[in-house]
């Protein structure tokens, strides 16, 4: 029983050996797609954003820019706690909203912040998740 279970888990884990590579792979693959224009979609994998959630998120923000990040591996609340903690280290981050259901994280920055997908992806990688795409909206 144990051996069968062990084999199953290892098979499931096989793609993981490219974890870092996987993250970096996405990182480089999407690099050329990045656009920082208002309301620009930057990645084909970006799933539909719940506009109601977005409107609620920006309801108390007067100006700035919002990065909507598609995140893989964000399945556990307890494991995602570091996302807020590490993003808030940046003084230009005004607000964060994590949605486990949609696999998205909304990050509101001040206007003076030069947003880089590479920087965002690195923070997610440091937290154990993989950022696979993002969209930037200016308020």
């Amino acid at each position, binding site marked *: 029983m*144990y051996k069968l279970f062990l084999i199953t*888990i290892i098979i*499931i884990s096989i793609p993981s050996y490219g*974890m870092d590579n996987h993250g970096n792979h996405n990182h480089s693959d999407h690099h050329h797609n990045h656009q920082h224009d208002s309301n620009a979609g930057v990645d084909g994998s970006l799933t539909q954003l719940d506009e109601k959630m977005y409107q609620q998120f920006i309801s108390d923000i007067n100006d700035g820019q919002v990065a909507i990040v598609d995140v893989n591996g964000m399945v556990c609340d307890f494991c995602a706690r*570091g996302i807020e903690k590490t993003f808030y280290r940046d003084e230009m981050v005004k607000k964060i909203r994590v949605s486990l259901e949609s696999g998205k994280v909304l990050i509101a920055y001040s206007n003076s912040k030069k947003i880089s997908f590479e920087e965002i992806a690195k923070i997610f990688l*440091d937290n154990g998740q993989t950022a696979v795409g993002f969209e930037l909206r200016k308020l």
Partner: protein
Amino acid sequence: MGIYNKLIIFFVSVLISEITISRPISWSGGSTFMYKSNSMISSYYYHFSPSYKYSLGVEYINDRYFNNQYVSLKSTYLLGRSNTKFSQGNLYFTGGLSTKSSKEYYYGIHGDWETRRWFTSFSQLDKNTSTHDYTEREIQLGFAPYLGEYDELHSWIMLKTKKDTINDNWQTYPFLKFFKGDYLMEIGTKDSHWDFHYMIRF
């Protein structure tokens, strides 16, 4: 083998395995504090993750049954991680060394895979004490009866089964896991005793 030695190994194995495999690495720069208590021992475990790839920890153990107190140094290394839209899988190498004797140490692998609804994990640890060397294997299965959103209370119904090469029989028992925010709690019962595990991340 005497019952005394079996009891020592049993309690040490329970202590090491259950604490080691629970969220063994935090985010880069993150810390975790754990407290565990059961009918025989209590322990305080702190680990720090300089990187998302590994953690370093120290644990103070109070063995009330044998009136023994000692400190153990531990480390866990992330061998690989698989992130998909709906799941995460991890494979770790872990090891520890008692400060009381260089002959008391353990090492092994631990893997887990989870979605928002299901959780599975396994571990195999080779343990060496001053009197015996043995292997312990463990499997956990978990089910979330409802899907909580971020910042809500999350509840899991868990089942754990474990076996070591000394007793050579599987022991299976249920427990409940709850977490909200930075706090996690596990509570279960085994052989008419309550096991309690508390964790905070910061």
